[in-house]
């Protein structure tokens, strides 16, 4: 379960807080995954008491509203990332950045699917630059479910897709797939990149301008141990 509480002494009109929080959460807590299970109890609350004084934020069109929105979103994102870093048994902190999508919805769906894929996550634990599993998850993310009418959104064109690893230490990216064609991967360099705790997987769909980011972790033996032992 995810719980969160944010408190601020800034003065915010009560009617504006729900939209401020919803927007912030969609780009932070609603963009993380550890094991793909949505809890019965997830709650994030924000409280604003105005104790610091100053002008109350009363309009969505004010500069203060925009500034506070940015502060709250960044703050919530930092909190959400801490949850991922403490994922049960996690050894890696992974940013999934999907760009080049015709729609934000499609980018989010693909990022979320890659972030939840057990095979992607076990490959990351095994320090394997397994771009095939990333491409696989990208390819099924937008398919209709069995039994539903065919409603495939044509956002994924394999020949346009590029996948790369961006190391957490700021060194150059490692290209794995370029416009649907596999690169000759330097395994030693890949292993070096995957030694770090932080990693970004960049998937460029090459079909638009929308993007989305998800944060996830790897799956380790410890996850099974912890949850095999957790009792009702």
């Amino acid at each position: 379960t995810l719980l969160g509480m944010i408190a601020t002494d800034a003065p915010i009109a009560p009617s504006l807080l729900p939209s401020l929080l919803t927007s912030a959460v969609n780009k932070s807590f609603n963009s993380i995954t550890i094991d793909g299970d949505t809890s019965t109890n997830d709650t994030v609350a924000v409280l604003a008491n105005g104790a610091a004084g100053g002008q109350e934020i009363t309009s969505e069109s004010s500069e203060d509203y925009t500034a506070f929105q940015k502060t709250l979103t960044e703050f919530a994102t930092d909190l959400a990332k801490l949850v991922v870093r403490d994922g049960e048994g996690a050894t890696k902190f992974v940013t999934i950045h999907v760009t080049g999508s015709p729609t934000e919805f499609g980018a989010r769906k693909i990022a979320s699917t890659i972030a939840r894929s057990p095979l992607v996550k076990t490959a990351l634990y095994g320090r394997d630059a397994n771009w095939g599993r990333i491409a696989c998850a990208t390819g099924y993310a937008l398919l209709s479910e069995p039994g539903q009418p065919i409603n495939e959104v044509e956002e994924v064109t394999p020949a346009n897709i590029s996948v790369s690893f961006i190391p957490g230490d700021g060194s150059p990216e490692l290209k794995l797939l370029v416009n649907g064609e596999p690169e000759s991967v330097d395994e030693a360099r890949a292993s070096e990149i995957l030694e770090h705790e932080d990693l970004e997987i960049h998937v460029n769909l090459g079909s638009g301008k929308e993007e989305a980011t998800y944060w996830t972790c790897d799956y380790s033996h410890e996850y099974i141990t912890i949850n095999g032992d957790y009792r009702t």
Partner: protein
Amino acid sequence: PAMSQTSIRHYSAPVEGAIPVAKQKYVPTSGTYPKGFLVSGTHVGVKATNKSNPDLAFLASETPCAAAAVFTKNKFQAAPVTVSRDILKRRNNKGIRSVIVNSGCANAVTGKGGMEDAEKMSFEADKCFGESSDGQGGSSIVMSTGVIGQRLPIQKILLKIPTAYDNLGSSHEHWLTAARAICTTDTFPKLISRTFSLPSSPSVEYRMAGMTKGAGMIHPNMA
């Protein structure tokens, strides 16, 4: 079939206060906390095996304040989710005094009794502020986390809410203890704080602090 219970590996939570070396860098040693907010973390023993760790967090505002929350969209919403959403709705996101949180038991899928327990937690927290009812119902949001499908040891929790109120404070240690109190399988408390300013009042320093918990059953979809 040949495997026996003895072949199951059991998880050992980190010993009390022990934070894995690799995670220690994420735990702050100081912070700047918002004015007018007080917090505490108190030991209740929601899980019978918990003999000393804080498992009841209390976040209170010295004055009634604006509040909002997002909640899981899971159809099996826990009792505290339903109760807290109703409180915010009835109050139009204002007049909120506190958040009371227990760890160790989620009070989820616990039927009408669970709803009553969540309401009692909220009511008991309200009583700490000594205010008579203003006719709008509770002013304390309630949260729970832990095992699903079990009733809360509600009497134990209710008895300790006044202690949680007495323990309230504004120091870094108070905030860190509260952050610890909401943890379940987490290996470290998650707490951050910062200052910021707003364009209309550049000389005013505003503060924001937050705590979160979560390690498993994490794929939030809240609204």
